[in-house]
């Protein structure tokens, strides 16, 4: 004990709230554990989000227009279709397939030895669509008018449930994240109030020796905030390590989004800050309530 340094206001502010014991551990561990969960959920939500985006981008983007018509109008209708497609919002690009490409498409079904010359093959136009895709009814009406032999086939159709699932996965992830944030707030608030309640005697003595409410509140807010930040920091670190060690870590597979990249790092970095803010707010409010009720 260095009395001279204790007598300085800041040192007292720091010392009056018990530095150890179960109330200290409670705040520390609660915020640590919740931060760990938050980081973990964050990683999962982001992975789910990335996954959903990937699937949407990869799978939702292709369609075909098939044009079957007599030779004299075939080329004209093809031109009309390409023009129509180029003017349709939701279509990224459209391209007529040449003969060899068509052959390739058929290979799974017929092998490569197909006598194509003998067939009058329809013209196939490959379309890249945006995630939302074009307005189908509008497009089909226009095609019916300008190229009666054209049929629009969206390959994305069978993929729709997947895209839907991916989207739902993302929603779930963010919902879970929201949930964890709320729960984290609740737990840290609870820990701070518990600690404060357990330290009723300290508050009592401080009031009796004439400490102002602001000073007492300050002492508790300071201590609990530091503790919550420290706990959350450790929890976040452990969370990041755990995420990195997860099965199917950063390198491989379609869940490669697990782990944080680039700007995503802002989120785990925010966790201790938010935990600290929550603890500060909760302590401030609890202390206010406690002190108001005492005379």
């Amino acid at each position, binding site marked *: *004990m260095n*009395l*001279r340094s*204790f*007598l*300085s*206001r800041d040192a*007292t502010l720091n*010392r*009056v709230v*018990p*530095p*150890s*014991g179960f109330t200290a551990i409670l705040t520390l561990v609660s915020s640590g554990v919740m931060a760990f969960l938050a980081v973990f959920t964050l990683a999962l939500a982001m992975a789910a989000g990335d996954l959903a985006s990937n699937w949407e981008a990869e799978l939702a983007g292709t369609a075909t227009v098939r044009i079957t018509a007599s030779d004299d109008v075939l080329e004209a209708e093809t031109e009309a279709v390409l023009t129509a497609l180029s003017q349709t919002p939701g279509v990224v690009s459209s391209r007529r397939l040449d003969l060899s490409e068509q052959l390739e498409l058929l290979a799974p079904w017929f092998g490569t030895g197909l006598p194509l010359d003998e067939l009058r093959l329809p013209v196939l136009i490959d379309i890249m669509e945006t995630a939302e895709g074009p307005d189908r009814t509008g497009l089909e009406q226009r095609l019916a008018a300008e190229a009666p032999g054209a049929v629009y086939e969206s390959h994305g159709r069978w993929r729709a449930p997947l895209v839907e699932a991916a989207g739902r996965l993302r929603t779930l992830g963010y919902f879970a994240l929201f949930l964890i944030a709320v729960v984290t707030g609740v737990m840290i608030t609870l820990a701070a109030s518990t600690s404060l309640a357990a330290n009723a*005697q*300290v508050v*009592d*003595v*401080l*009031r*009796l*020796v*004439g*400490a*102002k*409410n*602001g*000073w007492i509140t300050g002492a508790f807010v300071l201590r609990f905030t530091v503790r919550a930040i420290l706990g959350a920091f450790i929890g976040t670190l452990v969370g990041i390590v755990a995420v990195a060690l997860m099965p199917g870590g950063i390198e491989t597979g379609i869940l490669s989004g697990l782990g944080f990249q680039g700007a995503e790092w802002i989120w785990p970095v925010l966790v201790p800050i938010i935990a600290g803010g929550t603890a500060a707010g909760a302590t401030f409010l609890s202390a206010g309530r406690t*002190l*108001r009720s005492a*005379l």
Partner: protein
Amino acid sequence: MIELDKVAVSFGDRTLFSDVSLILPPGSFHFLTGPSGSGKTTLIRLCSMEMQPNSGQVQLLGKTVSGLSQNNVSAMRQRLGVVHQDSRFIDHLSVAENVALPAAVTGKTGRHTEYQLEELLAWVGLAGQAKNLPPELSGGERQRAALARAVMLSPDVLLADEPTGNVDWDMSIHILELLIELNKLGKTVLCATHDLNLIRQAKSRVSAKVLRLHGGAIEIAGAGL
């Protein structure tokens, strides 16, 4: 300095005081006696702003207590020294830190305070226990530490609730001497005690009045104590 005006206090349906009035002028020395449970501690708690009367008014240091803002209460507490019957400390701070607490929370720091603290601890016989924690003190040592804390900031008013309840006679006299000394410096002193010998001893040294609580009423005890 302290004025109670038609104060009534009840707990649940039990009325402790129905109409108590009392004036302690500045610089006066009063003893407060009465049987156990007569309300000595309650009266001191009224004076130290730890509770409010159900009706009536308490005036302290020239101000009416009810309706004071909390910061005002805090400021007034700094001019008030209180020794509680069950002395409360911050258990993880050393005895010296606890005694210095009133100075520390108000920023009254520096060499002078430190010197004063050492002197005070020596005076109450706790120099050797300065670095101990309060739970390690004996009953009498706790009371002395509480007394030291109460006078740390040289308060204008000293309220002492049985400050000699747990100490031997020699130490009681020693503590009485401190109270008298403070009173001679112009401080107002109110000391609750059930030790009539102490009061007798005091009366030969200082012009102290003795208030007797009994059946919810306060009376000034005569010379026939």
